[in-house]
């Protein structure tokens, strides 16, 4: 399978506060690739840098260092003409559906613009049909959402309109930032199934960002686990979920809420360090929460290959 996108030493720093502020290294020298026709999940807790990676992949945010290569081309070195081509092939769905829509326009606008910009020769009737079809495929009633302003719709409805919009463009790569976290269980599965069908039928790749491990397991081919801007583990779903190595991945898998067993005892949790301290840490960023942390962990653990496609960044597995 050929590589569609490659992230090379991708790094993004933010400055917080003007005077006496500090730096947040939101994404820290991350390397990964997304192949044609696969669903690649990025999971991690809130603030781990998922959205920042998505924005860089979508050419909305310039990396501080490193690059995103789409079909071998640095997305920030595209020529003016190529940008339209890029967005014809690469589309996105954003995390916060309320912010995705311009409050002054009706939601129809984003759907109509797709045709205006990318498929100007479509007839009026076909446009309408395709829009309705796309809305129905994400479980919406076109009559109920068309012609409305964003504030008249719920978060889940807006999110599905955003998904329908992306589907209308028929991209090669879809970067979906938590596309289903606002949806209820039954709609979620529908949306994920749509992504899987697109993959199997048309070879569309998806970068699926989320924090729900069961969903990532259900749909993806490969998974990347992110913690505070660094990759802690990466591999096929089977590797990561069935043979988890990193203590953080283990901890995540243990705390998935299940419907067949109630939590028994309260989870012990360590006092978390404040953000500025974690980002200033020169060692493993997970160390403050890690039950196995040792003095070695004051140094940054390298991303080590432990199996064909299985990578982990932890001193427990690093070959010295």
């Amino acid at each position, binding site marked *: 399978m050929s590589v569609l996108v490659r992230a090379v030493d991708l790094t993004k720093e933010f400055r917080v506060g003007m005077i006496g502020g500090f730096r947040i290294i939101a994404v820290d020298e991350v390397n990964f690739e997304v192949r044609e026709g696969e669903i690649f999940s990025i999971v991690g807790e809130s603030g781990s840098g998922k959205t920042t990676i998505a924005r860089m992949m979508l050419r909305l945010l310039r990396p501080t260092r490193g690059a995103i290569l789409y079909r071998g081309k640095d997305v920030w070195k595209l020529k003016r003409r190529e940008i339209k081509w890029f967005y014809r092939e690469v589309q*996105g769905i954003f995390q916060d559906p309320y*912010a995705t829509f*311009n409050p002054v326009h009706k939601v129809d606008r984003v759907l109509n*613009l797709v045709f205006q910009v990318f498929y100007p020769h479509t007839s009026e009737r076909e446009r309408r049909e395709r829009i309705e079809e796309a809305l129905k495929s994400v479980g919406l009633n076109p009559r109920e959402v068309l012609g409305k302003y964003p504030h008249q719709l719920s978060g889940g409805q807006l999110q599905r309109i955003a998904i329908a919009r992306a589907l209308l463009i028929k991209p090669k790569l879809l970067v979906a930032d938590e596309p289903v976290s606002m949806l209820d269980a039954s709609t979620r599965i529908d949306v994920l199934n749509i992504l899987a069908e697109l993959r199997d039928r048309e070879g569309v790749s998806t970068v699926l960002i989320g924090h729900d491990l069961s969903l990532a397991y259900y749909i993806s081919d490969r998974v990347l686990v992110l913690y505070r801007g660094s990759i802690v583990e990466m591999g096929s779903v089977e590797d990561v979920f069935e043979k988890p190595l990193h203590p953080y991945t283990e901890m995540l898998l243990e705390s998935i809420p299940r419907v067949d067993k109630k939590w028994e005892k309260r989870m012990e949790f360590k006092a978390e360090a404040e953000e500025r301290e974690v980002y200033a840490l020169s060692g493993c960023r997970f160390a403050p929460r890690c039950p196995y942390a040792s003095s070695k962990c004051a140094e940054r653990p390298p991303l080590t290959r432990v199996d064909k496609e299985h990578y982990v960044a932890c001193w427990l597995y690093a070959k010295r």
Partner: protein
Amino acid sequence: MRIDVEKLHGTLQAFREGIALALSNWKVRIGLGIIAFFVFLALVGPYLTPYKPLQFTGAINAPPSPQHPLGTNSFGYDIFSQLVYGLRASLEVGLLGGALATLIGVVVGFVSGYKGGIVDEGLMMLTNILLVIPTLALLIIIAAYLPYRGVLIESLIIGLTAWPWTARAVRAQTMSLRNREFVHLAILTALPSTRIIFEEIAPNMASYIFMVFILQFGGAILYAVGLDFIGLGPTKGISLGLMLQQAVLWNAIQLGLWWWAIPPGLVITLLITALYIVNTGLDEVFNPRLRRR
């Protein structure tokens, strides 16, 4: 062309809704009521009085009477005539100067905030220079070099110097809107920057820009009063500021000629207060932080 008609219709609709929303606020209604009254006075006032503002009426220092509703001053000018003509001039300066300052400020702010980089740095340098050099000194120099000054020149001077804070404010707003997801979505749709600025960002700031204009309008009136007061006002004609200046210069208060000194001050105060009330009301209506969702 069907789409354009639709879009126009949508814009009009949004505009109507915006106005209805604004008028639902009592502060906006009261403020606008006061302003409307003064505009009306400025428009029809000149027809209600037989005197020109700088016409000797024969009566000197006359107290208010049916003949002279607001009395006359030490030069024998009719105060009511002066007031309505002066009001006209002040409103003109406010409108022209305020509009010009808003226009320049908004354009500079949009371009600077959306483009960023070198463009932004250049424009902001200019803005900051204008902001820090004492404008009054600049105005004195400019004004002193112009032998003839009318309302138009005064407006121009004000408009060209009062925009920097608007530019900075609009730039800040544009920058924060620029990072909003709906602008990102427009970028993903490969829309060109101009369309993004005018179709996605600007409509979100329409009410804000209107508020800025209201502030600039009031600012320009006050600015003009200040200029008049220090003797840099119009060389011909009359304005509220000139009336005040003369009243003070000729010791109107000490001489007990309250009808000379008080009306122009009162009108200016009322006008500025009304503008301020409208602005607070609009802020309540449009400021998203004070509204839910």
